[in-house]
Every structure is written in C-alpha cells, then in structure tokens.
C-alpha cells in the first residue's frame, strides 16, 4: 500500500485575498472549498426538493393505489410507482422530510452531547473523568440494538422522540473521541495561559479545546448524520420508526430491496442515491466548515 503513496508535501496555491471582515473571511474560506460549495448546493437542493418540491410536483402520498403498483418510470410517474402504488418521486420528497429532519437533528444532538461530555471529562481529569468515561463505556457496551429493541417494545415515539432516542444512543462515540483530543489539548500553553489568568473552564473548553478538535468533531458529526438517516430505517424494522403513511429514505430503500431481483431499480436507486448524496454532501460541508473555522492559513 505504501508503495502507491506519492506524498506531496510541497506548497500549494491559495486564492488572492481582499480586505474583508472576520465573518466574511470565514464565509470566503468556506467558499474556497469547492467541494463544500457543491455539498451545500446538494443539501439545499434536497431541502428544497423535499419541502418545496411537493408544491410543484404534487402527489397523493396518503392513499395507496393498488391498481398501479411497481410501474416503471413514465410520463405520468417520473420515477414509477412503488409496491402499493405511491408515486415514487413524490414519495422521495415525502420520505426525505423525515430523513433530513431526523438525520440532521439527531446527528447534531448526538454530536453536541458527546462533544460536551467528552471535553468536560477529558478536561476535568481525575475521578470525574473516570466516572464520566465509565458511564460512556457502559453505554457503549450495551448494544444499541438491544436498547432500541426494548424501547421499541415499550413505546412508539413521535418524530421528536425518535430524534431524542437516536441522539441518546449515538452520542457515546463522539464523546470518546473528543475526550481523547482533549487529553492532548488541555495542557497546551494557550490553555494554561488562560487558566493562569483566571479564565473559566467553560471558556477553555469552548474556545480552545473544541475549536482545536474541530476536525475530529466534524468527521464524527457527519457520520452521526449518516448514521441517523440509516438508523431511522433500521428502527422501522424494529417497529420504532415513522408510521405509515409516513416514510423515510432508509425505509424506502429497504422496502425496495425486497424487489431487487425483480429488477424494480426505480425503487432502489432513488432513495439509495439520495442517502448517499446527502451523506456525502454533509461531509463536504463539514470539511468546508472546518476550513471556515481554521484561521491557520494552511495552504
């Protein structure tokens, strides 16, 4: 593998600068990352597609139409119809609402909780760290599947509930990661300087440790978003997801897959591509955000 690598540590070019304010600089740093811009465009597109799309392309997503199931794409149904006769394109918009909302909200929730928890534990050190991390260990050690199974047997949460549950089962990973980062960051001289001059711990964590762990956090966050989008489908399998007539991309995909051998590609590719594109786009945005926060002027 190493033989393939042709590292190139040499200098890279940067765009010519102009005078600008801090916030605008950040925006400019973000925009300089072409991929991030594309990612942003993709996300914006999907939000528009899901939330404004039905205004343009309106379909009936509450009633099944058993007379017209599994139809291939045509002028009447641009992406065909699914196993109970819903228009697939309309369904993609309909399901996308849930996937986008839950994915982003649960992903963000998990990342925020995990990040704060991990930073606090790593920063505090000593027995506080030990206790906090053992709680995380215990949480990680209990398979999420088991918890979801139990929860789904007891309750059927709404959308908010879903976000909270998914957030609560997935914050553990980011917390461990951020703690590891914190351990190496908390004794940096700039943190020591802050502490020696009476800065609060909160500031040390929020202004120094977290920004310096931002790349780890962002990678974690993008995975959390992806996880959440996929998890919604998974918990549907356990009976905890959104209820019909609502749906989500993951659910559409797994339902479509049962017809994989029948060649109903229009039931598989659209939700599959949508998930992949959105996940990819969030990652690209994450990358761009990292650049935006990064004043280090790395070439």
């Amino acid at each position, binding site marked *: 593998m190493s033989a393939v690598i042709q590292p*190139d*540590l*040499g*200098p*890279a070019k*940067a765009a*010519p*600068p*102009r*005078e*600008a304010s*801090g916030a605008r*600089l950040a925006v*400019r*740093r973000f925009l300089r990352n072409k991929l991030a811009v594309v990612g942003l465009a993709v996300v914006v597109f999907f939000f528009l597609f899901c939330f404004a799309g039905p205004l343009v392309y309106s379909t009936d997503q509450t009633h099944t139409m058993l007379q017209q199931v599994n139809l291939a794409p045509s002028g009447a149904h641009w992406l065909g119809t699914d196993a109970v006769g819903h228009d697939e394109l309309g369904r993609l918009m309909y399901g996308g609402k849930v996937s986008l909302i839950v994915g982003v909200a649960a992903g963000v929730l998990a990342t925020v909780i995990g990040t704060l928890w991990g930073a606090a534990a790593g920063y505090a050190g000593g027995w506080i760290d030990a206790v906090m991390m053992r709680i995380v260990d215990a949480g990680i050690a209990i398979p999420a599947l088991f918890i979801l199974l139990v929860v789904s047997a007891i309750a059927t949460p709404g959308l908010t509930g879903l976000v909270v549950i998914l957030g609560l089962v997935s914050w553990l990973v980011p917390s461990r990661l951020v703690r590891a980062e914190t351990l190496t960051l908390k004794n*940096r*001289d*700039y943190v*020591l*300087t*802050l*502490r*020696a*001059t*009476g*800065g*609060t711990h909160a*500031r040390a964590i929020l*202004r*120094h440790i977290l*920004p*310096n762990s*931002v790349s780890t956090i962002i990678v974690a966050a993008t995975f959390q978003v992806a996880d959440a989008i996929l998890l919604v489908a998974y918990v549907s399998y356990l009976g905890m997801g959104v209820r019909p007539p609502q749906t989500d991309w993951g659910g559409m995909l797994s339902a479509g897959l049962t017809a994989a051998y029948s060649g109903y590609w229009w039931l598989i590719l659209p939700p599959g591509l949508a998930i992949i594109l959105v996940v990819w786009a969030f990652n690209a945005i994450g990358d761009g955000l990292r650049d935006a*926060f*990064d*004043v*280090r*002027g*790395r*070439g």
Partner: protein
Amino acid sequence: MTATTKGSAARTAASGPILELDDLGVVFTTETGDVPAVKGVSLQVRPGETLALVGESGSGKSTIALAAMGLLDGNAQATGSAVIAGTQIVGASENGLAALRGKTVSMVFQEPATALDPLTRIGKQITEVIRNHREVSAKDAAAEAVELLRRVGIPEPEKRAHTYPFQLSGGQRQRVVIAMAIANEPGLLIADEPTTALDVTVQAEILDLLRRLAADTGTGVLLVTHNMGVVADFADRVAVMYHGEIVETGPVEDVLLRPAHDYTRRLLAAVPRLAVTETADGTGRPAVSVPARTNRSAAEPSASPAGPGGPASETVVELRDIDVVFGRGKAAVRALDGVSFRVGPAETLGLVGESGSGKSTAARVALGLIPPTSGTVSLFGADLGRTRARARRALRAGIGVVLQDPVASLDARMTVGECVAEPLRVHRRDLSAKDRQAKVAAVLDRVRLSRELARRAPRELSGGQRQRVSLARALILEPRLLVADEPTSALDVSVQEAVLEVITELQDELGFACLFVSHDLAVVQHFAQRVVVMRAGRIEEQGSTGTTLLHPETDYTRRLLAAVPVPDPVVQRGRRAERLATLAAGRTEAQA
C-alpha cells in the same frame, strides 16, 4: 583570534559560495492582503564563513532562511534565485531537496518547542537525520546521537536520549534541534536564533561548537540573531535587514563598530550592556569594563518605588520551600529543590540561571499550573493550594502571563486579535465589541505591532511578532502581577528596548509586580530590581540586581556574567580567548 579568521579566509578563497541568494523575493498571501516579506535580497555565504543576519523583528530574516531551505509555508511565493552548493532551490522539487537537506544544508529553527515530534524520543529523532544520509547501523547512529547530545551540552545524554520532547526545558529542546542540524556536518548551516532559549554559558558553548564545526569541516553558517553580542562573538560578516531589504552588509568589525546605515546605528544603540565591575575575589580574571552608553540601569536602584507600607509588608506572590519532582522512580527529575522567593508590588524580580535550571518550572509553580510536590505558594496573600476554584479564579484575574514559547502559547485557531482580546472577554465582559477592538489596537501599538496583524493567524507572524502578541495579551488587562517567561527572547534589541520601556512605564503607572524570567543578564540588570539566580533547581543566590550582578557571591554567577557576549567584535574575541583558556585550565585541573 587571528587563527580563526585566517582559517576561514583560506577556505573562502579556495571555493565558491555555498549559499548564494540573488534578488530573492518572498510574498505571503494572506486573507488580509499580500505581505511582501522579502524584497530583492542578494547575499552569499562561503564555506567556513559565518554571515550574521540581523535586523528588526519581522523584517524577513526567518523567511530568507526558510526560502533557502525550500521550506516556505504553502502561502508563500518565492521569486529570484537561491542556490546552495550549485543547486537551485527556488522551484525545486521536494524529492530533490530531500537529498540536500540535512546533509548539504541544515537548519536550526527559531521555535524549538514545536519543532520536535512529540511522540518520538529525541535520540531517535537525531538518529533519523543521521540515517537519512549515511549508511550507519541503527546502533552506531544511536551512539552518535548520544555523542551529539553531549556535544550540545545536554547533561546525562544517555538518559536524555530516551526522553520525549515534553520532558525537556526550552533550552534543552533547542539544543536537540541544533544536534539534529549538525548531525551530518553540513556544508551550510542555517541557524535561526539558535540560542534564544539558552543561558549565556550554554550559549557560549554552543557558539564554540558551531565555530569549531565551521573551522574543522568548513561549514558555512548563516546565523540569524538579534543578539549583537553573539554577532560580535561569532560572525565574520554581517547583513542588516530592515523591512524585507538588506540595508547594510560588511565585515563584522565594520558594521558593528562603524555602522553606516541609519537603522544599524539605531539598532546598535539599543543594545543593552551589562555593567560589570572589577571583581574583588582575586581570581585574577581581568575585569572588562564596558562603556555604558544608553545604560538605564544606572538609575536602577532608585527606580524601585517605595509604595505605601513598602514592598516588604505586602507580597504579591510568594514561593515557600518549593520542591517539584517530575516522574517517579529512576526517571524522576527534581526540577525544583527548596525554592523560596517572593515578589512585592511594583517590584520586578528577575529569575536567571542556566538552561534547565528550573526557571520556567518556578514560574509555572507561581502561577499554580504545576502543583508543587511540597511547599506552598501564596498569591495576593492567599494560599493557592487551599483556595477554592472560584476564589482562585478571582485571584488569577489580576495576572498577566507570557509563557516561554510564543508559538505554543497562541491558539492557532484564533486570529491575533482574538488572542489578544481573550482576557477582555474573560474578565471584562461588559465591554462592547468596539471598545474591545480599540483596546486591542492600543495594546498592539504599545508592543510595536501593526494593527493590521490583528486579523492574521499566529502562524503567519514572525517569531518576534508572536512573542509580542503574547505580551500584548498579558498586558491588555493592566495586571497586578506579570509573570513573563523569556518575553523578549525573540526580539531584536531595538524592539526589545521599546517593549521593555512599555512594561516599565506601565509598571510605574499601575504598580504591578513582575516575575521576569530571562537568561539575558543585561536585560535583567536593566529591568529588574531584584534577581534570583538559579542552578539545577536550587537558588544559588538572590539579592538586588545592583549588588548581585555587580558583585556576585558565587562562582556560578560570575561564570554566567563572564559568558555574556558584548557587541564589540574586538573586545568579544578577547574575552572569548580568555574564557576558553580558563575553561581549558579548569579542565586540566579537574583531570589532574
């Protein structure tokens, strides 16, 4: 004295320049605009010759050094030509340069704190450089690495070779970087402020080492420094930089004794001189008296303001019987051993001593950043070990801190402006954004930094600029106590003078106490009222600067003083010969 000159002259004649810069220009692209750091610089270094590059902080010295190595940052654009031993560096491929670097040319970086891989033992890091260019067995290379550590004056090199960078003091790290640079006896050594973190005795040893290298292997040296004493001591020729251009160049005697350019003259005028009196101990060492030109220290004894109640009754910070032991078992290092001192209001205490003697550790203990193994620290009359977190924070609100390493102490994710404004954000939350900006601008002015820099990232600054940012941050809140660990080590003398003046002014105005760690005895003499001399974790002697530095009681202090180079090449050469002779005598004595 003549021998050295002759030797290098002979070599110079023999071959062409090892380094030749021709119309070199470097422009940095930043978000706040282009920075033309170097403009059309041409210079040459011949084998065996030492060229000293001096000049104002931020004038482009480091940039030239990096450009010559092909190591400029990604946002830099070099033009013109830089040729090392016949190889064009500007625009060369990375792979071609790798063969050159570390062998034909090597470099000592300005900031040693972050220059070493934190997870690799220092011995291995040196070994790596050796094995990059020579077919040596790992074992032999390791032995060589230990030898190199010994040569740069690291005590117990066998043991230290196995330590990690974080276990070393600032000066020790710098010496490791030097060891790496000379590992392969390069044809050209570029040394960017190689001795900033070193105390004078070690500095003298290192300079001797480099000189021997130049003499024995014909290494050409491009020495970037702000220390005119070092220049005088070491350089054959001098180039003076100002605002990215070379304003004056010539043999060291000419430039230092008969400066032509206006800036050079100003620079030399700002050099602080150590006042030394004839010693009465009868060691027979001839005293050197230095003309005190702009010697402010003359007024020093009276400078200590006798506040109400006097400094004796009130204590800002006090260390009592402090021991600090790092690690345990075999690897334990006793960094401090029964250290006690106190600093009163409006008083400046200078902490001096050789590298690794525990100065930084003591400063950190005083700040409560390192819990002492035993002993107590009191801050503004409260025992730090026993105050609760909230109260401790309140106490600390009145402290300004400059830690030794300017790179490491600035958060790379913040702009300079944000770094400086941080104490305001912590303790003056009522301040409006505009007021805050105004204050930041004001304090940047005071440390002689352009306001423009506020929007740059710390890594886009020169070493001296970063150090001043650190200082600005410490001063912005008008502290009651300033703890400054080598706050001017990276500054050229003219800026240093200005900055120290600012601190003095502020101190007069605000009456804050100051714990000032430095290895520059001249600065301490000018700046501090009292001085504590440290050695190997213990206090060797302490007293008022006037008495202690003028009439030292211990040999150690005397040796420190004697090693301070003076910015007069002629005088300095004499002194060096003197010192070497004593040393040699000492050695033979010890051997006998």
